């Protein structure tokens, strides 16, 4: 399967059944991730980034469902797989870590056992072997004294430790893709940096691709080679992460980049109000016509209010969905 992307999402639409009918919670979502690549999905709460990730591993549950489009993992359509085949992918070839390391571990089971279970479940190891492998896995995420730590229960570990354990569980079976949904939101900034570094290094060593989901543009740009920005259920811009900071194309991205606080800016420029994007995110049932960003956009014209912009490919690589993009 050389050349084919690891994961390919094509024109995905996710419907939300709100009782009286279906409304699209995300639509026209397309992206691809190559083997070993790092890809970021950025957006505000409710913009559809997390449900897109859930769709990727076939875990959308009522009231959410896939309305249209295709997701191909390693050339095979995820929707076409049986429940058992999907289950065999999850945790084995596609793994995921969550934003809440406090709650993502089973409180009544020692962490070593939870790591070992992955080997038993997906690799058919005996418990004896699996426990041995769990110690190694814990050592690989730089937990000191792993042979003692495996017997600890989650509540005995700090938040950073728990996230390390989560990474150990997620990477236990050597997955091709690691989905990280806000992996460090609940952690201190210093711990956050360590965890990100660890995750990036481990994935680079093993050739695991990362799909990182976050509202933190800086963090994502730091980890990922390419970044897609989502707004109100659509990808508005997809770029190399260096480009997106240097020359954001979509007015929304420009607004995001402009609103990032910068260290030392007060010394250089004097006391300045932090930039913001005027207005609020539209409700899912009440998306505006045309470009969904138009009510908040400073550059909006008549066409923006009627016609939804299509994706324009940029010369420098990447794409943007705006009638007036730079």
């Amino acid at each position, binding site marked *: 399967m050389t050349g084919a992307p690891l994961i390919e999402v094509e024109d995905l639409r996710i419907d939300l059944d709100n009782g009286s009918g279906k409304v699209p919670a995300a639509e026209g979502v397309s992206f691809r991730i190559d083997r070993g690549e790092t890809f970021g999905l950025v957006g505000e709460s409710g913009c559809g980034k997390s449900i897109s990730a859930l769709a990727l591993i076939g875990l959308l549950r009522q009231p959410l469902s896939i309305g249209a489009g295709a997701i191909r993992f390693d050339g095979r359509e995820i929707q076409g797989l049986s429940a058992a085949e999907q289950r065999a992918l999850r945790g084995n070839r596609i793994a995921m870590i969550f934003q809440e390391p406090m709650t993502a571990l089973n409180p009544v*089971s020692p962490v070593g056992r939870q790591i070992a279970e992955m080997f038993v479940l997906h690799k058919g190891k005996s418990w004896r072997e699996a426990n041995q492998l769990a110690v190694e896995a814990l050592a690989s995420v730089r937990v000191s004294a792993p042979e003692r730590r495996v017997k600890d229960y989650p509540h005995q570990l700090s938040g950073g430790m728990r996230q390390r354990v989560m990474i150990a569980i997620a990477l236990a079976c050597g997955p091709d893709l690691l989905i990280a949904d806000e992996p460090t939101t609940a952690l201190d900034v210093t711990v956050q940096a360590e965890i990100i570094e660890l995750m990036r290094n481990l994935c680079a060593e093993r050739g695991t691709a990362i799909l990182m989901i976050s509202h933190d543009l800086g963090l994502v740009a730091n980890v990922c080679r390419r970044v897609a920005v989502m707004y109100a259920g659509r990808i508005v811009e997809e770029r190399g992460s260096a480009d997106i900071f240097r020359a954001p194309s979509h007015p929304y991205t420009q607004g995001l980049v402009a609103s990032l606080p910068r260290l030392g800016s007060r010394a250089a420029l004097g006391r300045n109000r932090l930039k913001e994007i005027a207005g609020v995110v539209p409700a899912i049932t009440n998306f505006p016509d045309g470009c969904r960003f138009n009510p908040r956009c400073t550059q909006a014209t008549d066409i923006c209010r009627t016609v939804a912009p299509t994706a324009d490919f940029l010369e420098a690589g990447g794409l943007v969905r705006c009638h007036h993009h730079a």
Partner: protein
Amino acid sequence: MKLRANLIIGGALFALAIVVGLLAPWLAHTDPVLDANLMNAEEPPSWTWWFGTDGQGRDIYSRVVYGARISLTVGIVSQLINSVIGVGLGLSAGYWGGWWDDVVNGLTNLMLAIPSLIFALAIMAVLGPGLTSLLIALGLTNWSFTCRIARASALSLKSQGYVQAATVLGYGDLRIMITQLLPNMLGPIIVIGTLGMGSAVLSEAALSFLGLGVRPPFPSWGSMLSEARDQITTAPWLSVFPGLAIFLTVLGLNLLGDGLRDILDPQSRSRRS
């Protein structure tokens, strides 16, 4: 380490009851059934007759000792059956939801609506009297509370991060139920289970009294209580000692359940160490 008084006392009382039941032939002074002697009828408690004697001159102490066997067997076995049924139905209903949940809910409501003793009576009437049918009857009729608790726990647990994480990591439904949900709901299930054992001991008494359970002359604490009913003013020891046995056993079970719950919760375990 803090002394866990409830666990120690509860465990000791329950263990005592079990040991007494197991060692009954060695602990009893006389045969509980055959050693009737009207010359000794209705003796109050004394050095010879520790717990007194009944109207037929049988040693109450020996009968209480032997009665432990039947009462505990009924309590433990029937509650085990109840727990397995209740947890199996409740856990799967809470986790899967949908039509299966509706079916289980309907069944549970049905069981709660019909007094379980009446239902047990009906089953006994079909199966006929005897210890085995007693176990079956009580084992099939008291699972609704366990089921309710298990279902409610499953409902709240399935939205927990670690259960969803398990789904994402490729755990199958059965594995999630057994490794993620079951251990996390064990506390309340055990507490309900110990309470249930107590009430099963009492139900056994009621059914034995109605002639459907253990039939005289074989002793169970419940049937002894029932027989002693008429002489409660003239020979109170007839009811006091079997009653005390039931009381201590049920108390022990409840304390034990309480203590076990503390142990099974890893958070309180670390507070202790």
